[in-house]
């Protein structure tokens, strides 16, 4: 029963934000000692575990080619492609972005987009611009803008999480095969696991996509209510409006520059 304290070390370590490597090291040693392994046996287990789970870290072999593509403008090219979607409504635009994020992550392009690479410079400004069109060109009230931005970030994260596991060389898939094959002396292929991630990925697109499409109606209703309330327009959010306009302008010129 006392071996369970090893799990407690992991939970407490991660929950109190200690360095994960140290948490793993301490939890391994503590669990081993509680399980009545001698110090030499613990070292041997660490060694044998490392040797038989090397397959988890082999995705590092793809870094040179991904690095080469990124220094030649891979992320910029992805943004150019997304920029062509600028005529859609907020919900439809984010649904398409969700799909693109899932598909690219599923073929191993997880770093092509992300909060810093695409959401801030591109996705969030474009989603806001679309919402402003819904608002007849007027700046968005604070609450609505927060909601649109939150949805932009969420579409990216959901797309990544429920796309990347369909790629066979991702950390989580290799962790499953590495752990199971070395611990239970069985044989699982990464490809089998990646295929089993597809049903959940489809569910994720249907569930989150449907919510994003409903977002359009929600935004319309909320914006109509705000317009009816204030009558003269949102004076309070004028200062933020300039900020949004700038961000949008930047991305527009960038896209234009890339096309020419």
């Amino acid at each position, binding site marked *: 029963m006392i*071996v369970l304290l*090893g799990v407690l070390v992991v939970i407490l370590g*991660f*929950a109190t934000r200690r360095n994960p*490597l140290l948490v*793993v*090291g301490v939890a391994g040693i503590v669990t081993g000692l509680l*399980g009545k392994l001698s110090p030499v046996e613990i*070292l041997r287990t*660490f*060694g044998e*575990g*490392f*040797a*038989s*789970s090397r*397959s*988890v870290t*082999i995705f*590092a072999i793809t*870094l*040179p*080619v991904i*690095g*080469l*593509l*990124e*220094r*030649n*403008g891979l992320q*910029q*090219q992805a943004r*150019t492609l997304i920029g062509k979607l600028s005529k859609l409504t907020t919900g439809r635009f984010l649904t398409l972005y969700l799909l693109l994020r899932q598909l690219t992550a599923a073929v*191993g*392009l997880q770093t092509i987009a992300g*909060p810093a690479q695409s959401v*801030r410079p591109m996705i969030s400004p474009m989603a806001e611009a679309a919402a402003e069109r819904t608002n007849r060109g007027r700046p968005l009230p604070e609450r609505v803008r927060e909601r649109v*931005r*939150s949805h932009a970030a969420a579409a990216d*994260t*959901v797309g990544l*999480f429920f796309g990347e596991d369909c*790629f*066979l*060389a991702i950390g*989580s898939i290799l*962790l*499953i095969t590495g*752990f199971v094959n*070395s611990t*239970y002396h069985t044989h699982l*292929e990464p490809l089998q696991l990646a*295929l089993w991630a597809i049903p*959940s990925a489809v*569910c994720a697109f249907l*569930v989150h996509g449907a*919510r994003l499409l409903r977002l359009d109606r929600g935004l319309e209703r909320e914006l109509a209510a705000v317009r009816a309330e204030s009558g003269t327009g949102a004076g309070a959010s004028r200062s933020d409006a300039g900020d949004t306009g700038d961000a949008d302008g930047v991305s527009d010129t960038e896209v234009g520059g*890339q*096309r*020419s």
Partner: protein
Amino acid sequence: MIRSEWFFWLVGAVFLVMAAQMLFDRSNPKRFGSAAFWGLIGACFFYSTWVVQKTAPAEPLGVAVLVMICIGGFHFTGRGTPRTTGPEERTALAARFGNKLFVPALTIPLVAVVCAAGVAKWRIGGTPVLEKGSETILGLGIGAIVALGVGMWVLRERRPSVPVHAGRGLLESMGWALLLPQLLAVLGTIFQTAGLGDQVRRIVEHVLPDGQRFPAVVLYCVGMALLTVVMGNAFAAFPVLTAAIGWPVLVEQMHGDAAAVLAVGMLAGFCGTLCTPMAANFNLVPATLLELKDRYGPIKVQIPTAAALLGCNIAIVYFFAF
């Protein structure tokens, strides 16, 4: 026959070459720590071959792993300023190469799948071309090498040092986190060796008598999600709950399909990641980047999706894994 060990040596060699570059990179304030960390990993990839064959003792490797944990855990690794292209240059390059940039990236999964599905059946004089049981991993390695060749051809890059430098930049920016999944797999092995799985199985059998399948599936999936919410990391929750419920109860006792149970179990953990501020880089960093007043804005938006998907994952395991 192409052996998986050769591929591990190639990965080890890549780490060693990058470690050597780090050693002489004066722009990295922690160049000695970084070089030691990645050099040690590279060397361990070679030494492990003999540990797996049981011709060398595993204890020195265990010591090396603990040294790596200390170097990474006490922040002795750092990153240099990579010699790379700027944003304007990249925009110009993207305009020049266009969608050709995607070709090398798509080569990796394509070659990997071809190897796993097609080349795996090839034989020369009765021996398979690819080592049996490692076809996907070898496919990934071959895919990465082919993609590098394709990439250098498409981008007209003749210097092999350029992709190595670019890859090292990515390696340094990921830092010690790159080793975390493997160490969690090691931790899972230690849990099992120390008898943790048996302990928890006894408790689970006590709580869930006569092998009821639905409560066991719910316990595994919801457990993955909740433990991930607490720890902020589905990878860390995976060895714990798989050693406890996933493997002994769902796979061994109830004869569930291992690939389905474990793959979907991990995704149930991802549902937890969507809901927790503990996963700061996924949930709080975007809020900061987007200058949101409500730091939990993205989490609030993600919770309904996460709840629905947790239900989907439970249903997938329950209906299709048995």
